């Protein structure tokens, strides 16, 4: 068995080097995109014991398939080269052979059992999230992830950090284009982390290849997964289930830190959360002027609202309503605050009350009421937003 394993490893490293050569050839042809990082041509081995097992399983089955393929295609091409009419081949007339047929039914069966045993072992290990050191709730929504650390007062949204001007080719794309977020998930190395995965709207799928974790986020249900990371580092993934327009734009970034650094980070976040609440109170007393509101409002709008309602406020006909000149954005202020804070059930309009600070909410609502010739002249203050929130909360 160890002999076999060793030869499997030799062959797989051989295949890897062949892949690299092939990539070089490709690069010579397409050297114009200088920014491009080199793409791995094989599955990642990852940074967990499970991902390593998954990789080994992948290589084993791949090599078995290659060997079977070589044998079958060799026989076929032998016939193609040697049993041709133009070489004077006379057709034999045999058309069955029970012994051969039994053999080529039985041998694949044995090979399959050989594949099924390690696959079963790995699967059972992967599906055991018990005895976790840390639990994190992962919630997908259109088109962002939300992380909540159980037992700690830390939770936040994680959004794509690549900007629209990069997506629309007006600016040079950064190195980690589409694989970068504003607030990555931070995890400890060496601890068993359990993920509780769910969704607020459609089905998403949380996938980090380096952990070999891909779990669907189903609205109304909670799925479990887990990982134990071996090496500190930054690991990137993407949503893997079609979830609407911006499915391609909700990446996942995980920073794995040593346990002590992680704990320091977590404590800092808890303090920040407390400070943020205090700031929120202070904010109720302050008032923004028009310029400040429009400036902040535009930033918030482009990050959170423009994906659907578009940067020009015109929406997408028949899909996402326009804000420019709309009744909500130009008339009833309370109704406007209400829909931004609480969302509109049965539609893609989310409740932003918990995603944004009071100041951000006030700014974005005010921005919507004054941008694109809406020109209502209304300046919205955090206290007004807070009032609407509390009324509804009662």
């Amino acid at each position: 068995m160890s002999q076999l394993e060793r030869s499997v490893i030799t062959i797989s490293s051989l295949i890897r080097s062949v892949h690299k050569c092939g990539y070089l050839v490709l690069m010579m042809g397409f050297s114009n995109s200088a920014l491009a990082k080199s793409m791995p041509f094989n599955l990642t081995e990852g940074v967990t014991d499970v991902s390593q097992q998954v990789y080994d399983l992948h290589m084993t089955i791949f090599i078995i398939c290659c060997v079977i393929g070589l044998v079958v295609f060799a026989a076929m091409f032998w016939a193609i080269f040697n049993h041709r009419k133009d070489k004077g081949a006379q057709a034999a007339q045999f058309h069955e052979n029970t012994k051969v047929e039994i053999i080529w039914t039985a041998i694949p069966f044995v090979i399959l059992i050989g594949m099924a045993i390690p696959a079963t072992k790995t699967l059972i290990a992967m599906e055991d999230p018990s005895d976790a050191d840390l639990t994190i709730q992962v919630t997908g929504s259109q088109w962002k992830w939300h992380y909540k650390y159980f037992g700690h007062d830390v939770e936040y949204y994680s959004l794509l950090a690549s900007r629209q001007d990069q997506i629309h080719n007006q600016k040079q794309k950064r190195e980690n284009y589409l694989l970068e977020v504003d607030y990555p998930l931070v995890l400890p190395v060496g601890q068993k982390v359990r993920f509780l995965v769910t969704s607020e709207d459609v089905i998403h799928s949380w996938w980090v290849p380096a952990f070999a974790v891909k779990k669907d986020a189903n609205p109304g249900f909670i799925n479990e997964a887990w990982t134990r990371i071996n090496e500190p580092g930054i690991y990137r993934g993407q949503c893997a289930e079609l979830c609407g327009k911006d499915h391609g734009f909700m990446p996942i970034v995980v920073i794995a830190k040593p346990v002590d650094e992680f704990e320091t980070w977590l404590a800092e976040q808890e303090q920040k959360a407390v400070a943020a609440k205090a700031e929120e109170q202070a904010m109720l007393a302050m008032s923004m002027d028009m310029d400040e509101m429009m400036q902040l409002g535009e930033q918030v709008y482009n990050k959170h609202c423009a994906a659907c309602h578009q940067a020009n406020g015109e929406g997408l006909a028949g899909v996402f309503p326009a804000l420019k000149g709309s009744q909500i954005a130009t008339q009833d202020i309370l109704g406007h605050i209400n829909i931004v804070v609480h969302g509109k059930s049965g539609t893609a309009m989310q409740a932003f009350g918990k995603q944004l600070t009071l100041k951000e909410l006030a700014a974005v609502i005010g921005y919507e009421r004054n941008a694109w010739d809406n020109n209502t002249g209304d300046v919205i203050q955090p206290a007004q937003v807070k009032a609407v929130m509390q009324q509804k909360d009662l």
Partner: protein
Amino acid sequence: MSTGSASNPLASGVDDHHNHKPNGFFARWVFTTNHKDIGSLYLLFSFAMFLTGGAMAMVIRAELFQPGLQLVEPNFFNQMTTVHGLIMVFGAVMPAFVGLANWMIPVMIGAPDMALPRMNNWSFWILPFAFSLMLMTLFMEGGGPNFGWTFYAPLSTKYSPDSTALFVFAVHLMGISSIMGAINVIVTIVNLRAPGMTMMKLPLFVWTWLITAFLLIAVMPVLAGAVTMVLTDKYFGTSFFDAAGGGDPVMFQHIFWFFGHPEVYIMILPSFGIISAIVPTFSRKPLFGYASMVYATASIAGLSFLVWAHHMFTTGMPVAAELFFMYCTMLISIPTGVKVFNWVATMWRGSLTFEVPMLFAIAFIVLFTIGGFSGLMLAITPVDFQYHDTYFVVAHFHYVLVSGAIFSIMAASYYWLPKWTGYMYDDYLAKWHFWCSLISVNVLFFPMHFLGLAGMPRRIPDYALQFANVNAVVSLGGFAFGLSQLIFLVVVIKCMRGKGERAAAKPWEGAEGLEWEMPSPAPYHTHTTPPEIK
């Protein structure tokens, strides 16, 4: 009358009452109940849909040629992937097989026509309406279906465009058409075989279609149920797939894939029949293991009802269910392997020639087998967690559907075009078509395996920079493959317009079967008296 050889009176035109066709274009094609005319309609329709769905694939590949958004917005991109999938599955591959069945099954089993000719007419003429309905939605406000051809809830219910009702009705129409076609095939094969044509003498194309027809009848109603539940969830306030009302979005996937997996085999079993007809002809040797081919087809069909959840390993199923579906899926490789071994054994010690149908058949065997291998890899649950919903899956199903199903349809077209039109295809162009298709289909789909392994999800309009080079290569392959199919269009038009060599009754030296015992083109009415079966 012993049915016919080339010296048959039909061929000499003495007895031309067998050739009378209705007068006038409208009467001939719209009111037709003739299985050959309906078969031709199906084939032409599917080719038109193939080009339409292909044009959408070109849009997809053009957008993905470089990172960033260049040509289309994400919402339209999603409509393109969705409608491309729906058109290729329901508009191109399935009607092409039904067309082949219409043309060839009565001819092969010695029947004068399909058993239910008026229903046959109806099942075809529903399709242009169904697909017009679906294509129309692309021009509606809010656009057409944008939730993937698998239309997972709640993306297809609560979050879908207003055109969803039209999508649902279009799918209903396609389902009705398929079910009627399937009933017709079964009734024809069971009742209209010529005396002496016992079940175990049926050509394998007939056998595989018989089994396919049972699959169709079993699963199309399930699809109809799924779309109806989507309809009522979206418009009538039911909660089949909404947890807030006691439903379950994952239940949608169970129902969809209970249809969807047998559907996959609906699109490949007739291919097996085609390849089993062509390989012996050009090997000049009887098919190896006829009986085991029949049993393998039947067991693949049976197993297809026990593997649906392998499309759903990441939805969060109990381990026991994951293991069950993994084992059952792995088992499918055994009968599939038997088929491939049988084809190779048929070629072994044959007297091979490589006319274009044979070239496509050989390409089918190799490339379908590669698709089978990636299928086996996908069956392994722990590794599927990595492959699932990436370009690895896209590569896999395009290998089995394009270089599998579509190549077999191409092979069948070249094989039987002389019989249908009475003219040989232009061999020079046909060889160009084959080699261009073969090379470009691999440039198109093979690198997708690497994209998937490197971590590129499917159904995204834009991607990280590391994927740029390979995507550019894939797109170039895609454009080349798309253009190559225009050569096929020219070849077909030339045959239809009678440009080319006259075809003999049996243009292939090693061919066997009733279709080769009648003149080319096949007369309008054939087997009006049952042929004698040796």
